[in-house]
């Protein structure tokens, strides 16, 4: 059974019909990429899955149950975590406080402390800077904070919105290596990216979104090799 099953999802956002009846699914442990150009509706889709926007039509099934009427703050407890576009770190809180906010929906204090140490092991840079204000970190480090913070909720489905945005090439490589590591642990990941090649290289499967609709989907290798993707997104 799929962890996430989206059927005919429609979203209106800011007076625009931003998502026009898309279907997608994610199996447990899968890393799925959602690629497409600016304004294609990728972020809107992700925000709707996180509950920050409300669909005007269609169904979202998570773990066999409908998510349509579940408020955003309850979806976190169900295991859905979002790393928002532009990272959204809490600038005037320390790195450690940011990570603790990620565990807001949990109340197993002891486990939270262990998870915190695990995050520092996964991102040693953050361990060095745990008492520093998140707003004073570099873009790449902030992306690490945002990812670690999302992981602190112990998600089953991690959704990443443009993790490579505005980062130096070397940092992008690092972030993607970490995404692969997290996927290797068996977590389901939905990755939204403009950097189509990087995303498809990391993912098992991919969807291509264009002006609110999914135009192509398939295994990453196929998509990378397809003329349409090569032409539109890989600049060949």
């Amino acid at each position, binding site marked *: 059974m799929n962890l996430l099953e989206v059927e005919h999802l429609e979203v209106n956002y800011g007076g625009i019909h931003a998502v026009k009846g898309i279907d997608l699914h994610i199996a447990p442990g899968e890393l799925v990429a959602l690629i497409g150009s600016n304004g294609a509706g990728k972020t809107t889709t992700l925000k709707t899955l*996180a*509950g*920050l926007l409300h669909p005007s039509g269609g169904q979202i099934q998570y773990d066999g149950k409908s998510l349509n009427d579940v*408020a*955003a*703050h*309850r*979806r*976190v*407890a169900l295991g859905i*975590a*979002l790393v*928002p576009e532009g990272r*959204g*770190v*809490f*600038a*005037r*809180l*320390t790195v450690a*406080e940011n990570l*603790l*906010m*990620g565990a*807001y*929906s949990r109340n197993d204090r002891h486990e939270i402390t262990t998870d915190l140490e695990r995050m520092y092991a996964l991102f040693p840079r953050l361990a060095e800077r745990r008492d*520093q*204000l998140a*707003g*004073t970190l570099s873009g790449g480090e902030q992306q690490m904070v*945002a990812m670690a*913070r*999302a992981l602190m*909720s112990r998600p089953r489905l991690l959704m990443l919105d443009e993790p490579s945005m505005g980062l130096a090439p070397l940092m992008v490589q690092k972030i993607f290596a970490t995404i692969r590591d997290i996927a290797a642990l068996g977590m389901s990941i939905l990755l939204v990216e403009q950097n189509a090649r990087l995303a498809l290289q990391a993912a098992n499967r991919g969807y291509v979104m264009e002006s609110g609709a999914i135009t192509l989907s398939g295994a990453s290798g196929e998509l990378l090799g397809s003329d349409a993707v090569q032409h539109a997104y890989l600049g060949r």
Partner: protein
Amino acid sequence: MKFNSKPKSLLVALAIALLLLPFVTDALLGRGWVRIADFAMLYIMLALGLNIVVGLAGLLDLGYIAFFAVGAYCYALTGSPHLALAFPSLLPSGVHLPFWIVLPLAALVAGGFGVLLGAPTLRLRGDYLAIVTLGFGEIIRIFLNNLNAPLNLTNGPQGISRIDPIKVADVSLNTSQEIFGIALPSVHLYFYLFLAFTALVIFISQRLEKSRIGRAWMAIREDEVAASAMGINTRNLKLLAFAMGAMFGGISGTLFAGFQGFVSPESFSLIESIMVLCMVVLGGMGNIAGVILGGVLLALLPEILRHGVVPLQQALFGKTIVDPESLRMLLFGGALIAMMLYRPAGLWPSRVRRRELDTDEAT
């Protein structure tokens, strides 16, 4: 300010100093200054309440004085002969509920008004929220000003007088008392009462700041979308911030009405809201010690000017050239501009803000 991390002896010394303060002030400066100190504590309570809304949750509120007004009128109506005017046959002598019954009720009513303001403004931030809250503060004041007809509920601009004094264990605080042979005038008694309330408000503020709720408020302040993606119910927590802040304001207002014995709408004008906001900003937004410092300074500054400017001019020029009232606003504005230029994080910034500025300089 972390009281716990400081040595106990310092805390004891501070407590003794505060307990002696009314006597020292009375002896050195006169009784009028004890009264000013009483008012300063009402302002500190207001500033700490507003700090929850603005400093922690990041919701700019320009109408905060409305909650002070709600608290004050709650006690003015239920602790004075006034309602006899509106309902002569039903309440021939007005309503005289005990202060200690009205206080929690007034806090709840003020909290309710906080939710009333919060609910329609949940989607607003920054400038837009400021405009709506400013309007709300004015609406409350104008209501109080005009609710004397057709039914005289608030007595309009004349205000409500003859409010019952606050009683502690059957002892009226409006009359001098003698305890262990020490004469305690009324202003001293109110000083100790307000000191106790201020300490309580500080204690609650500190606990809130360190709590899960406090951290959630700060997360909302920093990034609301990310906060709700963390599983924070942003709607309820914003309403809670408005309600908690309003309750502090309501408590302060109730104390004000009992202390003053008289309330009128002119005490609750926009400039008062701005004054309280200035205390929060000047002292150091989000830092309890800073907010207290801001409250003390801004409550005392006008009085110092009032008592200092005229004698100074007399000494220099032999006559009063500038009226202290007009000079007050000038100096006040100048002080605020100087603050923003030289200490943008406030006089006593929070640990976090200070570090933020340090890092800026280091890079």
